[in-house]
C-alpha cells in the first residue's frame, strides 16, 4: 500500500536560528532530550474574549483550532450552563451531541491521514481525507459551512436541524462504515504498520497521571477517562455507547483507540437522530449573574476545559481556555526519549497535536548543539524506514 512518491507538506525553513516547536537532541541515532516551544499561534484569545459579548465569544473560540472547532463552543456553553445552573432544551442537547460526534469522526480521519503520511503510506492519507469529505458535506448540509459551524449559543443551539435531512445523513454515515472497516483492517492487519507503531512511544499509566494526559493519549494506556462519561453533557447519558480503551500505551494503541471511537461516534449520531424530540432549541438567556462556571467537553484530542468568571456584565470578566494538547504535548518528554529519530515523527504525531506545530521540528547534536536536520528530513527518515521494511 506504500507509495514511492513523497509529497512534502507544511511550512519548512532551512535556516539555523529558528525557534523550533520540537527540538530533538540526539546522541547518534537516539533521542536524548527534547525541547518543546509553543506560542507560535498565540493570539491571546483569553484577552480578546473579555472584549466580546457572551454570544460573540462562541464565534471567537471556534477559531482557536480549526480541527476541533466545535469542542471549544461545546465546553464554553457547558461553562455557561454551569454558571447559570440551567439545562438547555432537550432538542438542543441532541443537536449539540450530533455536531460534537461528527467532528470527532472528521478529526480522527484527518489524524489517520497524517499518520499515514508520516509513515510513508500516502495512499492512506489520500483515502482517509477523501472519506472525510462526506462528513464535511453533512456539516455543510446542517450548518452551511464545512468548518466553523457556528451551531453553539449560550442557552442552546443557533440553528435547528430539519427532519427531512435525516434520511440522507443516516445514509451517508452508514456508507462510511465499510470505509472504517477498510482502515481498521489496513492498520490492524498490516505487519509493517504494527512493526512501526507497536512498542513505540509508550506512556504508562503513571506517565499519564504525572503529565495529566487526556483523550485517546490517556485511553490508549488503559486509563478510562472520558468527559462524556465522567461529567456528562449534551445527550451522552441518553444514548448507549462504549468507552474505548487499549492497554498498550504505544502509538499502535493510540491509533486503534481513534479508529474504534469513530464507530462509536456513528453509533451515537444514529441514535440521536432517532431519539431527538421536537421542541425549542434555545433558552433565550438575557442576563448573566455574578458567578463562576466550569465547562468541559471531550474533544477528539481530549478534555477541553473552559472557566468563566462573570461580574454581571455583558462580557466575561475572565475566560480561561485550556485545550487538550496543552497537557498531551508535554507528555512527549517521556514518550520520545530513548527512541530513534526515524521513529520521532510518528511518536510526536501520536498525541494528535495541532498540525501546523508538528511540522516545525529540528534535530540537534546532544553534545555540540549543532543543527543536523529539520522537520522535512525527519518525515523523510520515517518514510524511508517503512520503505526498507517493505522490501
Amino acid at each position, binding site marked *: 500500500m506504500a507509495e514511492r512518491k513523497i509529497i512534502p507538506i507544511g511550512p519548512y525553513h532551512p535556516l539555523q536560528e529558528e525557534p523550533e516547536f520540537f527540538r530533538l537532541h540526539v546522541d547518534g541515532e537516539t533521542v536524548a532530550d527534547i525541547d518543546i516551544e509553543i*506560542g507560535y499561534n498565540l493570539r491571546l484569545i483569553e484577552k480578546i474574549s473579555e472584549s466580546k459579548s457572551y454570544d460573540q465569544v462562541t464565534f471567537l473560540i471556534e477559531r482557536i483550532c480549526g480541527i476541533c472547532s466545535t469542542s471549544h463552543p461545546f465546553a464554553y456553553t457547558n461553562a455557561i450552563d454551569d454558571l447559570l445552573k440551567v439545562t438547555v432544551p432537550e432538542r438542543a442537547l441532541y443537536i449539540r451531541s450530533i455536531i460534537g460526534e461528527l467532528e470527532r469522526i472528521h478529526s480522527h480521519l484527518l489524524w489517520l491521514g497524517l499518520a499515514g503520511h508520516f509513515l510513508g503510506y500516502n495512499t492512506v492519507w489520500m483515502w482517509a481525507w477523501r472519506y472525510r469529505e462526506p462528513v464535511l458535506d453533512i456539516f455543510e448540509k446542517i450548518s452551511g459551512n464545512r468548518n466553523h459551524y457556528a451551531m453553539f449559543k449560550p442557552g442552546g443551539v443557533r440553528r435547528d436541524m430539519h427532519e427531512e435531512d435525516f434520511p440522507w445523513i443516516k445514509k451517508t454515515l452508514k456508507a462510511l462504515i465499510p470505509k472504517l472497516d477498510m482502515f481498521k483492517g489496513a492498520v490492524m492487519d498490516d505487519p509493517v504498520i504494527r512493526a512501526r507503531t507497536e512498542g513505540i512511544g509508550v506512556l504508562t499509566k503513571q506517565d499519564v497521571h504525572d503529565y495529566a494526559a487526556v483523550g485517546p493519549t490517556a485511553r490508549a494506556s488503559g486509563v478510562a*477517562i472520558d468527559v462524556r462519561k465522567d*461529567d456528562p453533557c449534551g445527550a451522552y447519558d441518553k444514548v448507549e455507547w462504549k468507552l474505548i480503551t487499549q492497554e498498550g500505551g504505544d502509538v499502535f494503541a493510540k491509533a486503534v483507540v481513534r479508529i474504534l471511537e469513530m464507530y462509536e461516534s456513528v453509533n451515537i449520531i444514529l441514535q440521536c437522530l432517532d431519539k431527538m424530540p421536537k421542541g425549542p432549541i434555545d433558552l433565550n438567556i438575557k442576563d448573566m449573574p455574578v458567578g463562576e462556571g*466550569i465547562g468541559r467537553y471531550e474533544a477528539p484530542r481530549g*478534555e477541553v*476545559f473552559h472557566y468563566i468568571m462573570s461580574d454581571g456584565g455583558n462580557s466575561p470578566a475572565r475566560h480561561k481556555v485550556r485545550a487538550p494538547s496543552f497537557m498531551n504535548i*508535554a507528555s512527549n518528554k517521556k514518550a520520545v526519549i530513548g527512541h530513534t529519530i526515524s521513529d520521532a515523527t510518528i511518536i510526536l504525531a501520536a498525541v494528535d497535536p495541532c498540525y501546523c506545530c508538528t511540522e516545525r521540528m529540528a534535530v540537534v547534536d546532544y553534545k555540540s548543539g549543532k543543527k543536523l536536520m529539520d522537520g522535512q528530513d525527519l518525515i523523510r527518515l520515517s518514510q524511508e524506514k517503512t520503505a526498507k521494511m517493505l522490501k
Partner: protein
Amino acid sequence: MKKQEIIENIKVRSGKDMLDFNDRSERRVYITIKKEILPKIARYLFNDVRARFSIASGVDTRKAIEILYHFSVDEIGLIVSLRVILDKSNLEVDSLTSIMKCAEWIEREIHELLGVNFKGHPNPKHLLLKDDWPEGNYPLRRDR
C-alpha cells in the same frame, strides 16, 4: 472515593487555613485556602485521591490576583478548585512542579501573563510570549 470523604479530608488537613468553602453544585466545589498549605492539599489530591490536574487559572480581580487550581476526580465527575489569593504586593507562591510535572507549563504561562512568581520552578522562561516581550508587561493584568 466519595465526594464527602474528599471534602472532609481536605477540611481536616486545612484546619484554620481554609478561608472559604463553596459547595456550588454536585460536581463543582470551590475551596479557598491560604497559600502556605497549597502544596499539602495539592499533594493530597494528586497523590492520595489520584485526582487529575486539569489546569490552573489565574485572574486579576483588581484587589488581588487569584489562582484557581482545578483537580478533576474523574470517577465521580467532580472538580475540586483550590483558590489561592495573592496580595499584589507579594505575588509569590510555591511551585507545584516537584509534586506534579503537569504543573510546569501552566505556571510558566501564569508567570508571563500575570506576573506571579512560582518559587522553585525549574524552568521559568517564557512559554507563549516571544522572548523579547517587554519586561513587566503582563497582558492579563488590569492595573493600567
